[in-house]
């Protein structure tokens, strides 16, 4: 109940109009109030007619999240493979230290990065642009990719790539043709987590973009400002939350198969 309550409330609110929100608290359509489609209509109207343009932020969000996730996964997977298979030594730095360096980037409070990024991006003219955001998101997402993939590769038997090497593959072929196909579940889980954490970020999107480029969360929160149109707010919130619910199903599937199990150790 506690889980779904806010969703039900939002769903119910999204069909209200000015009257039914502001007079008294109402719950059930037709019984308590007369439902209206006002909240959903503004989503598809053009901004000039008083609508809320949610399509463009939607695509911006998808673009930034996916690009940053893909880059993080590719680079993170390569690094994770190296960390899991080879030994590195440089002074007192060992494999574990490098892994820890990657993962520890999650400790970094966003606010610490935001100020230098703000100044840095405005200097090179990437403030308020998609590319700037992608760069920042890579920092957020790569640690997750490395964390999950190192663990995953540790559980893929080494004999697998050794056999491939004996069979005459060079290391790149061994990785690409033998190890990668066997790591698809790991890649999917890592990808899901990257997408989740990319999609739900608000802070950087809020600070580093203004008008030219707006991501979905920023757009929805902006609705919250002066006169709060609860109905369109609820509708747009539901729309923006929806896609990731599919992700929940995928994660659950891999969880049941036991593919997430070692991710913590």
């Amino acid at each position: 109940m506690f889980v779904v309550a806010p969703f039900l409330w939002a769903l119910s609110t999204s069909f209200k109009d000015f009257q039914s929100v502001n007079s008294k608290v109402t719950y059930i359509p037709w019984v308590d109030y007369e439902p209206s489609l006002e909240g959903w209509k503004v989503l598809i109207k053009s901004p000039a007619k008083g609508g809320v343009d949610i399509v463009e932020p939607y695509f911006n969000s998808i673009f930034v999240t996916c690009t940053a996730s893909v880059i993080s996964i590719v680079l993170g997977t390569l690094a994770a493979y190296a960390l899991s298979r080879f030994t590195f030594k440089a002074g007192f730095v060992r494999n574990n230290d490098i892994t820890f360096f990657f993962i520890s980037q999650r400790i970094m409070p966003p606010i610490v990065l935001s100020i230098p990024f703000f100044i840095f991006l405005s200097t090179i003219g990437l403030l308020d642009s998609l590319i700037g955001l992608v760069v920042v998101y890579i920092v957020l997402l790569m640690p997750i990719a490395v964390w999950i993939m190192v663990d995953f590769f540790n559980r893929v038997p080494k004999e697998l790539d050794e056999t491939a090497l004996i069979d005459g593959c060079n290391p790149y072929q061994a990785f690409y043709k033998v190890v990668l196909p066997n790591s698809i579940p790991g890649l999917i889980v890592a990808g899901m987590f990257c997408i989740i954490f990319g999609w739900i970020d608000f802070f950087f999107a809020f600070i580093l973009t203004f008008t030219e480029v707006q991501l979905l969360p920023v757009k929805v929160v902006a609705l919250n400002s002066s006169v709060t149109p609860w109905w369109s707010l609820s509708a747009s919130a539901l729309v923006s939350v929806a896609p990731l619910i599919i992700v929940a199903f995928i994660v659950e599937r891999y969880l049941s198969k036991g593919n997430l199990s070692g991710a913590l150790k």
Partner: protein
Amino acid sequence: MNFKHKFVFLFPGLFVLIGILIFPIIFTIRLSFSGWNSYTPEMNFIGITNYIRLFTDDPRFWESFFRLSFLSVTTVILQYIIGFSLALMVWRDIKFKRFFRVMFLIPMMTTPVIMTVIWRTFFHESLGPVNDLLGTFGIGPKWLSDPATAKITVIIVEVWQWTPFMFLLLLAGLLSLPKEPFLAAAIDGASAFRKFVFVTFPLMAPISIGAIIIRLIEASKIMDTVFVLTSGGPGTATETSSFYIYIKGLREFQMGYAATLSFTYLVIMIISLTIIAKVLTKLMIKE
């Protein structure tokens, strides 16, 4: 296996990350010794003036920091308790197991700020459903405008949002446990409670530590929720360190001082999280 190709795998990722991060960090440190603000937007050098100001003349920062510690520790403890019980519940074979699992995961997939916007209407003092229902019992707490209850509201929202993550990590852990100890316990005729205390919990200790630390790291960044729900208010009742730094830096444009704050904050964070990790490991493993 060891050969020159290993660097080809490692370096792209490592260098991209370092490349993106090195500038901001050095810049923050340098900035923290400058008086960059909206009147003098330049990189002058004013020595440790900012640090002196922080340590002698800024109780607001320290208050916000203790508030943050309080909020994150409370939410993480609650998340651990709730998350663990939910995970135990769906670990066994109960009806609609998969349905419940997906259900408990959903809040994590939703964008915190957007849900917070919904929560705000949810807790609205005169038009929200919470007070409407509580009103039938004759009480109507001021969820957002009273310093004490505003903290509770933030905690509720945070717990709702992030318990699923805890749940996910713990359930994944539970599913990976070996079966033998449980069989042994069953043969000995242990009660469910004893089984939990003597078998499940000790086996889960390392995973619990991992999950708690990960959540503490994430919780220490509480920002979105506070920003939308209360904007740090009423007064400074729910203001956390991040939010305070945000106000100083990007609202009042005291960049230099904000850099000092954020660098100090980062150092405190790293030290305290390391200590917490060490202490937790000792405590849990011993038990």
